[in-house]
């Protein structure tokens, strides 16, 4: 069976765009630095230099002239209309519009297309960052100067984020593989249904059978060693990234003289320990009282009731006495 779906160029176009983005940014920054060093602009004209840098960057992105007043809007429009065109092309390729096919032919053809698309993910060389990591060089350089601690903190954040992306990719490759296996299991069912299986007569029945078959394939993978490792690695990488992100957030909070998470956690820790100590002391006190045979103090409500009752009794006695007196 041949599939008519062309291998997607979306991922390659995306990578090209990212590359163009970073290259134009670096070129613009180089121009900025050179212009500053060569005193192209009068001292203090920082705004003009920065404007020129951004214009050059955006021109590099867009391929248009620096005098285009709308290049920011044009950039967005290009990105979205490109993405929209690609999406529509993908849908047309999938649907094979205009072709008349039987339902099982359609289902099998669709299966083959999915197979190819998922295969592209599965067979790729790994996370795109493996082949092009624009900030890895910068993140690997040791920090310099008074802000070196902050530089190192941000560099470490980037490295952890980058690692998380790579490990996540492995996880999603696994999920793509399972998507393919579920697809193949579904195709097998369509081609060779079990002897005792009733034919599927409505879209709901087809859908429910597809769910059942796919779930079975997924459940088997979800219980496997491979999934366990991929999932664990991804969570651990995310924990490492989040931990570093917390440090960065704390450092920013500290600069604004606001309480940091670390400080608040310290407070919560102290309070929890105090609560434990308090509870232990109350328990010990109760045991001591019990050992001494001291009666438990009546709760406030009950004490109030007793007082009211006592007053009522006194009033009754007074009234009786008064009545007797009157006689």
């Amino acid at each position: 069976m041949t599939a008519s779906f062309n291998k997607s160029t979306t991922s390659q176009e995306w990578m090209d765009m990212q590359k163009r983005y970073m290259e134009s940014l670096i070129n613009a920054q180089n121009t900025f630095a050179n212009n500053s060093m060569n005193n192209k602009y009068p001292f203090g004209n920082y705004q003009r230099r920065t404007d020129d840098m951004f214009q050059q960057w955006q021109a590099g992105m867009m391929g248009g002239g620096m005098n285009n007043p709308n290049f920011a809007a044009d950039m967005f429009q290009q990105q979205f209309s490109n993405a929209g065109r690609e999406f529509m092309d993908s849908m047309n390729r999938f649907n094979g519009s205009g072709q008349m096919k039987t339902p099982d032919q359609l289902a099998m053809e669709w299966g083959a297309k999915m197979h190819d698309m998922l295969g592209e993910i599965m067979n790729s060389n790994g996370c795109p960052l493996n082949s092009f990591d624009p900030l890895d060089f910068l993140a690997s350089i040791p920090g310099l100067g008074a802000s070196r601690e902050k530089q190192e903190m941000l560099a470490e954040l980037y490295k952890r984020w980058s690692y998380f992306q790579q490990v996540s990719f492995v996880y999603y490759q696994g999920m793509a593989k399972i998507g393919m296996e579920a697809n193949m299991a579904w195709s097998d069912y369509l081609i060779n249904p079990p002897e005792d299986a009733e034919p599927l007569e409505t879209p709901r029945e087809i859908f429910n059978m597809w769910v059942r078959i796919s779930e079975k394939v997924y459940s088997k993978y979800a219980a496997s060693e491979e999934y366990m490792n991929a999932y664990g690695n991804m969570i651990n990488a995310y924990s490492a990234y989040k931990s570093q992100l917390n440090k960065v957030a704390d450092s920013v909070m500290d600069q604004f003289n606001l309480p940091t998470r670390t400080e608040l956690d310290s407070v919560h820790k102290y309070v929890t320990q105090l609560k434990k100590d308090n509870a232990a002391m109350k328990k010990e006190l109760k045991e001591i009282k019990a050992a001494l045979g001291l009666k438990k103090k009546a709760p406030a409500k009950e004490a109030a009731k007793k007082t009211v009752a006592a007053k009522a009794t006194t009033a009754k006695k007074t009234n009786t006495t008064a009545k007797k007196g009157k006689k």
Partner: protein
Amino acid sequence: MSAIDLKADKIAEEAAVYGQKLAAGIQNMKEMGEISSGVTPYEVVYTEDKLRLFHYKACEGTKTTNKTPMLVVYALVNRPYMTDIQEDRSTIKGLLDNGQDVYLIDWGYADRADRFLDLDYYLNGYIDRCVDVIRERSGKEKINILGVCQGGTFSTCYTAMHQDKINALVTMVTPIDFKTPRNVLSKWVQKVDMDALVDAMGNISGDDLNDTFVNMSPYSLKLAKYINMVDVMDNPEALKNFMRMEQWIFDSPNQAGEAYKEFLKYFFQENRLVNDELTIGEYDVRLKNITCPVLNVYASKDHLVPPPASLALADKVGSKDYEEFEFKGGHIGIYVSSRAPKEVPPTISKWLSSKSK
């Protein structure tokens, strides 16, 4: 033979019915009103931090025949109103109607102030104080305890540590052995560095936990459930029941970091309870120290706590009076299926009453 044999008349009928139900359902959803979370009246008899201890009130005319009160300990994950979700599917009401005196711990919603509460605080602190409150109120030296899922694990550990306060133990869909072959949830966490996770996240988000549970059956729970939901949408009562479940499923509190870390490390990853290696606070938790009567209720089609995970209790308890009750259903079905109220509360009540003086 072809796997697919589309019938035009059936397709037309299915499409028409689906459309009608969907249209009616949208109207029903607009008119639904508030979705309740618990139906049986109660009184709050004790509070501590976010914890509330409920004492449920039986219907007028219902007699409390068992004078030994029972404490229901629910899991920290999800909210306890699952046991009291609707009038005709309430385990709490069933227990009350069968003569039990029922208390329940509502753990509340943990926040960052609870970050460092550990299992010792939950079990030997909160639960122990609730037990003491009930003992004092009832005048009974010992009470009955019923634990649900993780709450059952807690109840079991508590009974092992404080056997002198417990008359009888009931566990419902409770994991004891966390490394049985079909325990998918356990497999997923084996390679996770819990220390790093909790240090980074603080408390564990309830939304993340929901996502984990739903991902155990993603095709069914993320997709098929909502396609097939339309089948009940034209029936306002059935739709409301569905929405009640939906509300409960996604109403997940955050988990206090330290307690979560200990539970996953000591139970899921290291399986200390069943291996007699668990210590909580100053207590060694040994299942053989449980000498009171034990009723172990499990669900035969439980995908979250497979039956072997619960049944491991049988060989470990020191009690000579141990019984099992199998409910033919799932982890949630044991509370909300139509058969559940007819089978589960009467069985538990009868057993408890026979073990209480």
